[in-house]
């Protein structure tokens, strides 16, 4: 019998497969394709203290083996999420992780406080979205500000917090340490890599925002490397993501040091992906005689 369950911050997840924030809404749309009861957790699209309209279109562009997005964290605000999306997700036997974004520390704290009595399992703090001009990314690119905001949120949060790290930094290990020192219960990485695409026929930027976040299989090696580097220097668990397209990719992240994984842009390519990863993990465990999936965490041979 294989045991796929993992524990993060004292919370038991039936398996390590989650959905990367922003690629899965609150599960309603992909619920037509996958059984949400099967997932380890749904990580919801980033939500702020009030509705955000997001960026102008075009917001998405395909790149070689990946895509750019500059949605700009369009979201209906925390009140709608609490009223509509959380009750929807509670119908399912899966963990709920709410991704929280903001422009100021106060924005984050207001949202975090509103979530305190909602029964969601964890919060993922988005300090790494590259597509929002103010706040957000500024907190995630300097170790001292990451340390400070982590501490502020940890003080107010009823739930364990996951700090989502940006890959757009010089030293990911330093950022991981700063979040841990600030009181983070877990880390998730990587968010998207800042990119750009130019239409040579129109001589214009493809995205209205000029820059966007690169995701998809093209970024996977960067993500695996960063998960490895971050997980080596902290004691808290790491949730790995970045271009996961199948169970083999998920296993690679776990061997690099991830306790859990999230599928993101590749949901767009294969809407059944999350369930297929779970099946593939079990097959791998049977094939290699792995009884408990946590045996794989960081198990790459040095």
């Amino acid at each position, binding site marked *: 019998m294989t045991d796929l369950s993992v524990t993060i911050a004292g919370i038991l997840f039936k398996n390590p497969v989650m959905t990367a924030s922003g690629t899965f809404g609150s599960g309603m749309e992909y619920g037509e394709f996958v059984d949400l009861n099967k997932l380890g957790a749904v990580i919801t699209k980033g939500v702020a203290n009030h509705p955000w309209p997001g960026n102008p*279109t075009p917001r*998405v562009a395909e790149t070689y083996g990946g895509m750019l*997005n500059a949605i700009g964290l*369009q979201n*209906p605000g925390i009140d709608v999420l609490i009223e509509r999306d959380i009750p929807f997700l509670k119908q399912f036997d899966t963990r709920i992780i709410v991704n929280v974004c903001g422009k100021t520390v106060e924005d984050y704290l207001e949202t975090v406080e509103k979530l305190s009595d909602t029964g969601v399992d964890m919060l993922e703090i988005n300090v790494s979205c590259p597509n929002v001009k103010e706040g957000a990314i500024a907190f995630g690119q300097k170790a001292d500000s990451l340390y400070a905001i982590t501490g502020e949120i940890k003080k107010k949060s009823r739930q364990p917090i996951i700090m989502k790290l940006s890959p757009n930094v010089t030293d990911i290990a330093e950022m991981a340490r700063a979040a841990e020192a600030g009181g983070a219960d877990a880390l998730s990485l990587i968010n998207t890599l800042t990119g750009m695409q130019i239409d040579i026929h129109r001589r214009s930027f493809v995205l209205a925002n000029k820059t966007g976040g690169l995701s998809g299989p093209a970024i996977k090696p960067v993500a695996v490397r960063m998960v490895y580097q971050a997980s080596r220097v902290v004691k808290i668990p790491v949730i790995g993501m970045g271009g996961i397209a199948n169970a083999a990719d998920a296993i690679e992240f776990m061997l690099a040091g991830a306790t859990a994984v999230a599928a993101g842009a590749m949901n767009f390519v294969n809407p059944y992906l999350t369930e297929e990863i779970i099946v593939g993990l079990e097959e791998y465990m049977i094939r290699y005689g792995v009884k408990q999936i946590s045996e794989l965490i960081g198990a790459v041979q040095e």
Partner: protein
Amino acid sequence: MLSKQKLRGSVISQQEIAPSIFSLWIETELAKYASAGQFVGIYPKNGATLLPRPISVCEAEGETGRLRLVYRTAGKGTAEFASYKPGTEISLLGNLGNGFPLEEAEGKQAALLGGGIGIPPLLELAKGLRSRNPTSVPDIFLGYRDSQLFLQKDFEKYGTVHITTEDGSVGTAGNVLDALAGSGLSPDVLMACGPLPMLRAIKAFAAKRHIKAFLSLEERMACGIGACLGCVCKTKETDPHSHVNNARICTEGPVFEAGEVEI
């Protein structure tokens, strides 16, 4: 109605019906449930081009399970589709979007306006309107760049076809709205698909005449099912999903009542 799914289809035939315009017939379960104005996502086989390409339904034959897509080659994905031969297996995501509200044309004189690659989705619409209401003959305005027409013969079965070309080589010189204005007709409802400037002009035209217009919009998409929020359009009222006056073209659309959208 079938829930959205990703499934296999098989190419029945493919033909280039005008320069860079391809007519692709596919055998797929989706044909049974597809309605006018909806679209499907076709996945390129090349693993480096990941995202499904949104292509509107040109014809759907429920009984035979045959779906017709007419598309223009524009980039890597559509260039690949153009190489498909009968028997090629393809992955499809569908059926997507809301489609045209055929009931809005009930008992009314409808005018359909299509520009360029916005013409194909009007064929299933014309067919649907005619079968719902056999005595009412829609006016169909088809706008082309030049004499390289396509699908115009298919439309003749379902309504009165008015051709316009930008260079004046066939039919009325100008665009579909010039032709409608010059025709002396006064339709009660407009249904349109085409380039944004054309849709803006139709929106203004309909507002001035106090008639309803239904416009099929397009935008760059990623997921196609309403999760990624990539393909939004500004709306007059608060949208039902994000509450920020941004409707998802793939889900709340692609067809909107002209007064609902800020284009």
